[in-house]
């Protein structure tokens, strides 16, 4: 029974990693851009939610709702005015720019918020749990996982059943031909990064409510997000969820064996999948 419990906790933890990863996966899928500042943007968004909670006295979920449009606008502007200028055949310039952004964000947050660790208070929700009969799960992990499933479901609907999603896929296939359809690839990219920042807001909400965070924790979140995306197969959103779950389960099983093995087990699972399936579990047919 203890193992069933461990696996369930791991899958639910995977929901958090999938939330970290979904925005990264979206942006990579559409414009082949790896945003090295993704983890730091999650942390910065957590600080923004914290500020809204503290200044307006809102519940964290409402605070995230308030922060989301501002963060959409930030993502849109970041793409429009910075990243679009460096996107091209050469993948190095955008990598360097996002690396620079990562360093700048960490230092900026250190200036503004100090190195103290923070937490978004979620009240009774923090310790609430639900008895599912065979296992008992925390309400917060369950909510995180449900949010991840919902985010990925909605992203898939957007991708495959809307005109915007069609424009995303067409631009990702062939930006020049998309422009012959009247689509402006640069504004499509800007909308995509704006959307990724909305997902980042949701990830930040759960990051901030579930654990302490400080300006330096972004890169570690980025690693989990990377691993989830790569295990799942680049560009596959459901794959990202499964990738997150695999890392989550590896971590909880590792921790069950020996508490010091938690992080290591996650990375080992990543390496094992990479050796067995170098292109991930659900690679795209065309790339």
């Amino acid at each position, binding site marked *: 029974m203890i193992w069933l419990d461990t696996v369930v906790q791991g899958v639910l933890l995977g929901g958090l990693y999938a939330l970290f990863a979904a925005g990264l996966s979206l942006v990579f899928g559409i414009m082949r851009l790896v945003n090295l500042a993704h983890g730091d943007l999650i942390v910065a968004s957590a600080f923004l939610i914290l500020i809204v909670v503290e200044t307006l006295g809102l519940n964290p979920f409402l605070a995230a709702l308030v922060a989301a449009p501002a963060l959409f606008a930030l993502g849109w502007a970041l793409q429009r005015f910075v990243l679009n200028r460096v996107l091209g055949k050469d993948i190095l310039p955008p990598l360097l720019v996002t690396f620079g952004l990562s360093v700048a964000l960490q230092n900026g947050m250190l200036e503004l918020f100090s190195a103290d660790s923070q937490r978004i208070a979620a009240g009774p929700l923090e310790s609430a749990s639900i008895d599912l009969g065979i296992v008992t799960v925390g309400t917060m992990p369950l909510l995180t996982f449900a949010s991840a499933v919902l985010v990925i479901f909605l992203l898939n609907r957007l991708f495959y059943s809307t005109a915007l999603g069609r424009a995303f896929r067409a631009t990702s*296939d062939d930006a020049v*031909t998309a422009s012959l*359809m009247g689509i402006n690839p640069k504004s499509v990219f800007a909308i995509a990064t704006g959307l990724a920042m909305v997902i980042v807001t949701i990830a930040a909400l759960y990051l901030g409510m579930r654990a302490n965070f400080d300006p330096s924790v972004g890169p570690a979140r980025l690693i989990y997000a990377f691993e989830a995306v790569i295990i799942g197969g680049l560009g596959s959103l459901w794959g990202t969820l499964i990738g997150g779950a695999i890392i989550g389960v590896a971590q909880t099983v590792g921790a069950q064996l020996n508490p010091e093995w938690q992080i290591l087990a996650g990375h080992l699972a990543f390496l094992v999948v990479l050796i067995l399936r170098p292109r991930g579990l659900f690679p795209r047919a065309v790339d």
Partner: protein
Amino acid sequence: MLETRGLTASYGQFKALFGIDMTVAAGECVAIIGANGAGKTTLLRSITGVLRNGPEMILHRGDPIGALSADRVMQRGIAMVPEGRRLFPSLSVEENLLIGGQVRRGSGHWSLDEIYRLFPILRERRHSPGTALSGGQQQMVAIGRALMSNPELLLCDEISLGLAPVVIRDIYAALPTIRASGAAVVLVEQDISRALSVADRVYCLMEGRVTLSARASEITREAIHAAYFGEAA
């Protein structure tokens, strides 16, 4: 309706077009012929804004559009069937058609139903990935995709390239309907007799220059030969 004035284009140091003067009137069908590497595709890429030029080098309804981006040019009603068809592999046949009319949906004859009436096979294959179709069917999708915006000018780059003669015949059979819908058509073709049979006027390009411009009905085999291969007529 469309006019190029001393249009030049280059790829880095390499000059591909040296001052092209060309006009297309509303509803007209103009053929552009010329050997491989003559600059035909480059000319269409310049008109559509994939390659940027001086603003005044291309006029559309009197407005300078040479420096506009491709999406802005398309939104003015200039649609392109690109060389090699270039369907979107992630999109089904129907999605490929829909995306052609997604940003600009001019008023006019063309709708999904009308495209399927023009090319009935596409209705049967509408849920297949565009790239799973035969070359001829893909060409039909590429033409339908461009028509979905109800363009006033349709630019076609070598729509018969690599297709069997019967397939080419089927595709050309659609041209009268397309012209009847009111669109002007520019046909870039290597198949000269095919082009001459449908065009009102013909331009021949050689090494980035116009070497012949004539009414299709008045042109002679000798004149084409001279313009194509650069021999004295």
